[in-house]
Structure formats: structure tokens, C-alpha cells
């Protein structure tokens, strides 16, 4: 196995990680305010669609990115209204939103373009790739970091900013307090409902950005259901990262890696079996972290 190949696996891991990381951050921040959001898939998919639609009509990258973020946020807002404000069951909302958006995007694709299945067009503009001038020339590193978009970097910045916001700022503190004890935070005038709703909307925007990087960064097209379960993987990643922004970076990278390694293993093991890898790895990782925290507590049994 040569170094070039390893570098390319890392490179591909980084690209595969970004949408998962962004959605996982969306999931994490929701659980920080006590909302279980499983409409991540819907929030991502709508963004892949609308970013490409706007891209098609305007050929403008910025507008497309914005369209993606806004459409994701819009779905987030609907989820917020139904789930937070009207307290509908999270599972029902999430499941039917995922289904609804998958149907709606296919339908709209047909309605707007008369197309079925996918929109691929050479006129679509992809996100500019950044090949950093100095790093590009370092052999291994340059190879690892080639062809990443600004959002691939931005995802990590967002994670760090989210960490700073939650743990260092006043309004972050209030946001966290809603998740810790909603009643208490409300008793001192925090508008808990509003915070929860904006956080869920924000998670929509984050997933939206994840969708954008999928449809305009990794590839430049829209195809039906192109998120292919990344929202659920993101949920697992957030859970593995105990909803902490920085740990979520680690767990998302882990999932990205599982996918690349899984593909590499396909030459040896049947693909059906390699595809279980990320899922089994998640369970093992959760077991490990559970076992460690139990061991450190060591105290009373059930």
C-alpha cells in the first residue's frame, strides 16, 4: 500500500466527513436544548435540491449556498413548530418529514424541470476547490488536503465556534440552561421555547450547509434521495460525541473513516458485510465509552 493511496483515503475521508459533521453538529445542538431531532435527513435533502435549483437558474454559487441553508432552516423551522411548540412526538415528525421531503423534492424536480430522478447539467457551478498555495506542495499533506471546498474547512470552524458559543458566551450559557432545566431557565425569564425553536431552525441551517457541500462540493448535481441515510449516521455521530461540538468532530471523522475503510475492504470481504462496519463500530464505540464512564463511577449498581 503506497503513501499516495493512503493520502487519498484520508482526502476522501475528509470529504465524506463534512456533510456528516455538519448534520451531526445540528443534531448535537438540538440535543443540547433537549430536543431530539431526527428530521436531519429531510433538512439535508431539501438543501441539496434547492441549492442545485438556484444554481441552475442563477449560476451563482453564493445564492445557491444561501438557498440551501435557507431551505434547510425552513424545514428546521417547521420541525420546531410541530415538535417544540405543539409537542408532537419527535419520532413521528422526524419520520414523516424525512418521507415528505423525499417525495416533495422528487415531485418538484418533475414539476419544475420535467425531469425524473436527477438533475445533472454541465452548466451547474460547483463550489470552488481550495488548494492552499504552500500546503499544496508538501507531498503527503498536500495530497491529503487537495480538492476541498471552503465548507470542508468551515465545518470545523463552525464546530469550534459552536463550542465557544455554548461554553464561553452568555447567550450560549442560557441556551445550555434550557436543555439542563427548562423550567428553571424559564423561571428567570429565559424564553426557552424561543431558544429551542431557533436552535432547531439553526440545526436545519447546519444540515442545509451539509446538503450544500454534498450536492455542490462532493458532486455537482441533484439526485433523488442523494443523502442516502447520512442524517442517521450523523445522529449516531452526535450521540457518540456526547453532543459536544469538539468530540463530535472526532466521532464524525471516525464515521468518515469507517466508510472509506469499508470501501477499501470490499476487495477482500463481501460488500454487504463491509457495509455493516460503521454501524457495528458505533455500537462498539458506545459500549466502550459507556464501560469507561461506568468504571470511573464504579459505585452503585442498579
Amino acid at each position: 500500500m503506497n503513501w499516495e493511496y493512503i493520502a487519498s483515503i484520508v482526502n476522501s475521508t475528509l470529504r465524506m466527513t463534512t456533510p456528516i459533521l455538519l448534520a451531526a453538529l445540528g443534531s448535537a445542538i438540538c440535543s443540547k436544548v433537549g430536543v431530539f431531532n431526527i428530521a436531519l435527513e429531510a433538512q439535508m435533502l431539501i438543501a441539496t435540491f434547492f441549492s442545485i435549483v438556484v444554481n441552475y437558474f442563477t449560476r451563482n454559487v453564493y445564492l445557491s449556498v444561501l438557498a440551501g441553508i435557507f431551505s434547510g432552516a425552513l424545514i428546521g423551522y417547521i420541525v420546531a413548530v410541530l415538535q417544540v411548540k405543539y409537542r408532537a412526538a419527535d419520532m413521528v415528525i422526524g419520520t414523516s418529514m424525512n418521507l415528505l421531503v423525499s417525495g416533495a423534492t422528487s415531485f418538484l424536480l418533475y414539476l419544475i424541470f420535467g425531469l425524473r430522478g436527477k438533475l445533472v447539467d454541465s452548466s451547474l457551478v460547483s463550489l470552488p476547490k481550495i488548494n492552499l498555495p504552500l500546503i499544496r506542495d508538501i507531498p503527503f499533506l498536500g495530497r491529503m488536503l487537495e480538492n476541498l471546498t471552503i465548507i470542508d474547512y468551515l465545518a470545523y470552524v463552525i464546530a469550534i465556534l459552536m463550542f465557544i458559543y455554548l461554553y464561553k458566551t452568555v447567550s450560549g450559557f442560557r441556551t445550555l440552561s434550557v436543555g439542563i432545566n427548562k423550567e428553571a431557565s424559564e423561571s428567570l425569564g429565559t424564553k426557552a421555547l424561543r431558544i429551542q425553536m431557533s436552535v432547531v431552525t439553526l440545526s436545519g441551517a447546519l444540515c442545509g450547509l451539509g446538503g450544500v457541500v454534498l450536492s455542490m462540493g462532493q458532486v455537482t448535481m441533484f439526485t433523488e434521495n442523494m443523502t442516502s441515510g447520512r442524517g442517521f449516521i450523523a445522529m449516531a455521530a452526535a450521540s457518540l460525541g456526547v453532543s459536544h461540538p469538539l468530540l463530535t468532530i472526532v466521532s464524525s471523522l471516525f464515521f468518515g473513516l469507517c466508510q472509506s475503510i469499508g470501501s477499501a475492504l470490499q476487495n477482500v470481504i463481501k460488500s454487504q458485510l463491509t457495509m455493516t462496519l460503521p454501524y457495528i463500530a458505533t455500537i462498539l464505540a458506545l459500549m466502550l465509552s459507556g464501560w469507561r464512564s461506568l468504571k470511573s463511577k464504579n459505585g452503585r449498581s442498579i
Partner: protein
Amino acid sequence: MLLEMKHITKEYGTLRANDDVDLSLREGEILAVVGENGAGKSTLMKILYGLEKPTEGDIYINGELQKFRSPHDAMAKKIGMVQQHFMLLQPCTVAENIVYGHEPKKSGIFFDRKRAAAITKELCEKYGLSIDPSLIVSNCPVGLQQRVEILKVLYQDASIIIFDEPSAVLTPQEVGELLKTIKKLASMGKSIIIITHKLSEVMEVADRVMVMRQGKRIKEMAKSETSIEELSFLMVGRHIVERKIPPQETTGTVLDVQDLVLSGSDKKNILDHFSIHVDAGEIVGIAGVSGNGQSELIECITGLTQITSGDILICGKTIVGKTVGERRTAGCACIPEDRYLWGCAKQATLTETSIMAHQREPAISRYGILNTKGIQKFTSGLLERYDVRSGGLSQKTGELSGGNLQKMIVAREIELNSNLLIAAEPTRGVDIGAMEFIHSRLLDKRAKGDAVLLISSELTEIMTLSDRIYVIYDGKVAGEFRKQDATEESLGILMMGGESNEPKAV
């Protein structure tokens, strides 16, 4: 008048929790509101604090009509409330909790935690309340948590402070300090409303007393014009007579705790070579400042926690390693100290809550199949005999007033007819009528020749009911007294970790 509430009426469906109540408060005054369980005290305060909207009636501050839509509005008018169930962010620090809502900032957005700690220190000094700002709240004992609540209200610069049953969960020492604090705050110009079931506290701090019954204001008077006897008569509509407890012979040991050790997460033992016994026909009290291992002792005996070493016997048979259910059949009933955590499920109906631990009795179920009729009969019997005021068998447990819920739990455990009854804080939050009632039930149990282990932070309760008293300190038995030998001082010194009842050498 600083504050006036006029003609307040509050209806929950058909129930009138408040019925045309008036209340007024002057600056620097301490007003005590007393009344039986479910009289509507908490409801009135929730209205004042903007947590509930009155069905009718108005609130005036300095003669100005107010409309409170939320606690936020009330706070803006300098009304603060120390709620019964603490509104604290448990995993956060004391300082973070106190400054919550008006946090000090660095460069406009960042939370200045250092300043928060400094502010907390200043605040503590100003009001003479000490607490370490960097402690994590969940690690603080209840008394300290309440202090955090008070400091929170003070930091909000409240001039009217409401306390809803602040002493119910405190140790006598903590109560003493609380009352001192309240008086001090009043002397600094704060106006205070306090709800309590402990009339001695009323007599100690209040300037005026308002008595409520069945949602109505019955009477209001200056403290100097009334007495404990009169207040209790007004509250429950009858005289409470002090009871004589006849001495009684004990027969055989029921509970025998031998050399019990429960180790904690660090090196220290939570319970350290702890040995006590309770005989048939006696009430044994455990006195101690809460947090010295009482909760763990109960958990060890009832089987909620596995012990590290030692032995626990009920009627001569060891119960170590047995499950909670097996211990219950072996004859161990328990009135839990936290009624919402262990004692009930708020969403469950009254029937469901009342048959817990009875569910395998023949009247309730046979071969695992529930007997619906039997259950209804059982529950309505309980509610009737123990005077639990409720809206019917299918009411949700969480909607009962605290005192009534307590009565129901006491009823359920006593009806188990077990050899041993562990009664942890059996009268927490109940009115004096109910308290007297619960006490008689405990004494009945003793008279029947059963054993009662009474754990209470209420020293007077322990001293009146117990035949024997152990003092628990730091997980160890710090002393053992017969009823006649125990005095408040001798117990108190041991409870605080003193060596004996001799004054310490300086």
C-alpha cells in the same frame, strides 16, 4: 401599602383553589401565610409571581394595577420567589446559578465567570450568607441549594420575596439560619411572604399572619395578638391536643443492622461500620443532619443499593442479596423521603400509585392477573380512611397537593401491615392536622407490636415519637439515647460532629 392582592379567585376546572382572597404587604414586613394542605397558599403565590393567571382579581404594587403574564413581569416589579422545588441548574456552579439572567459580560458577549464568582462573593458578604461560588450545585446539600435560591432572588434585586415552605426540607440548624436570614432581610427593608406549616417558625419570624382554609382567607392578625393554639385551631377547625405516649414493652428484634459498610466512589465509606437495631413495639429515631448517610441507610435496608459488607436481618433472617420485592415480602415497608422521586409516578392515576408494593397481594391480583374491582375498593378505602382529598380514583397523582400525596403514600405503606416500617420524613410538607394524624398512625403501628424506624430532620418529631434515638454523623452511629435521656442540646452537639455532651475544651 407596598403590595395588595384584591379579590383573587382561581379556578381549576370546577375546583376553587382561591376564593376571593385579599392580601396586603408593607415594606420591611414579614407576612406568614398558613393553612391546611390544599388550602390554596401555593396557588395564591403562583398568581403573585405570574406563574398562574387569576380567574378574577387584581394585583397592585404601590397602588398601581399590575398584569403579570409571566414570572418575568413579576421580577421586573421586584418580586422574587424561592420556590419549593428548586429551580436550579444542577450541573452548573453556584455562581452561574446566581447570576443567571443578568450575567456579567466580557467584550459584550462572553460570560465573565470570574466576575460572576466575585459578584457572588460580594452578594454573600452583603447579606451575610456564605457559600463557595465555585461549588457545583448538585453536590450541595439542600440547605445550601436553598441559599443559592435566596441569593438568586437577591441578585435580581427583589424587594418582595416569597418563600413557599422553605423549611420543609431543611435541617433544624439550617432552619435556624434561614429564619435569621429572613429577619435580616426584612431589617434591610425587604418585604417577605412566607408559607409554612410550622407554627413555631411563624411565631419566630412573622409580623403578621394570614390563615387560609379551603381557598378562602379566614383571618388575619398581628403575630402579637395570636398564639400557636389559636392558629392551629383556625387552620384545621379543631384543637390539637398534645398526646401522651404510654411506655410499652418491646419483644424481640425486628431489624438488626450489623456492622454495615457502604463504600462510596472515593476511599471514604458512606456508611461506616454502622450497627443499629429496632425491636418490635418500639419507634426508633435516627437523628442527624441530612446528607450524613440517612438516605443510603434506607436504600441499603430496602434493597435499592447493594451493601459493601456487614449484615442486615429482619426478624432474624438475613436480607442481604435479596431483591427489593423479596425484602418487602419479608416485612419491610418504607415511606420514602422524596415522594416525587421514589413515592409515586406523577402521570399515574391514584389507583396506580396506591397499589404499588401491594400488587401481588391476593386482594389486588391472583396469578399475575389484576382484580380491577378489588383494586378500586382498596384505593377508595385508603383515600377514605386516611382523609386524602382528591378528585377521584382516576385523577393523576401529580395533581394532588403535596400534603395529600404524602398522606396517600403513608397510607399505602402502613397498609402493608409489615413488621418493619421505615418512615423517612413522614410529615414533610403536611399541615398540622395531617401531621397529628400521621403520628397517630405510626403510634398505632407501634401499639400493634411492629417496629418503626423513624428518620427525620425534624428534631421535635424524633424526640416526641421515638422510644430510642440514634444520632448519625458522617455515616457512623455517633450516639444512642433513651427517650428520657435525650435533650435537644445533647443530640444537637452529636449531630454536628461534637464528641460528647461535654463542652469541648478550647
